[in-house]
């Protein structure tokens, strides 16, 4: 066991949220992804994904936009600029742990 040099982000470090952020950070610019797609891509239930997204949204890491498409409710999700920064820092912190000391 060793101490990491850079700070890990406790919100992002949770494995499901780590996967969510990794996926959302693949989107470019102002792209948003549908909640249902995210759910099936990650293999999660509605409730599970919703809870993790709420945690990330509280932190300002993701933005949720509820709208209607063909009169059906839809939720689109995107990583915020702050979320992208936090995720990049978290990954850098993980990588720093693996560097030979």
């Amino acid at each position, binding site marked *: *066991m*060793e*101490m*990491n040099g850079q*700070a*890990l*982000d*406790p919100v992002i*470090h949770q*494995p499901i949220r*780590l*996967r969510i952020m*990794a*996926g*959302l*950070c*693949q*989107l*470019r*610019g*102002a*792209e*948003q*992804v*549908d909640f249902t*797609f995210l759910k099936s*891509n*990650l293999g999660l239930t509605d409730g599970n994904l919703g809870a993790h997204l709420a945690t990330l949204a509280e932190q300002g890491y993701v933005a949720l936009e509820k709208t209607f*498409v063909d009169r059906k409710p*839809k939720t*689109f999700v995107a990583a915020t600029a702050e979320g992208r920064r936090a995720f990049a820092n978290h*990954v850098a912190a*993980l*990588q720093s*742990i*693996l560097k030979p000391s």
Partner: protein
Amino acid sequence: MNEIISREEAAEALRLVEASRASFRSAIRAYRGYQHLWVWGGVWIAQCLYIQLSAHPQGWVPNALVLVGIAGSMIVGRHQAQLVRKPIDRRFLAALAMLIGFGALAWPWVLAGHRPLPQQASQMYYAYTALVAMQCYALTGIWFDNYLLWVGLLLSLLIVVGYLFFLPWFWWWMALFAGGGLVASGFYVRSAWK
């Protein structure tokens, strides 16, 4: 979070990140994109077979098939927009418009329009139009960093080979290798990037 985690935990977390990135990127790129390839592959097959087999190949049917393709693409695009919403990329549209504008107007009407057409004019024009379409695919592939670059390049090559070396069988060739190539590419994309 200044807590201690092991190198193994860090490595596992990074593996998770990479796996998630790869899976997400693949799914986004491939989501229903193969359906565009099926639509236009089907249109090309139908056009070429019609021209080869019909007594009146210059009629309205080939153009009507293009409209069917556009309608099909719009339906697929509408479904795609339900997954990923993004603002219209005006620079990409401008680049595409320049390419199509040159392809559809400058060469056939301005540069070649006043010259006597060779005997194989219909094959030449079809091959040329198909090549312009494939350059649009390649441009899209370069712009958005996806498989359409390779589809565009491979099919361009097949079209040129068909026109230069298999002209007597041109329409059969185009149906099989250009239209069929698009359909086969769609199946490949569907299976490889699912």
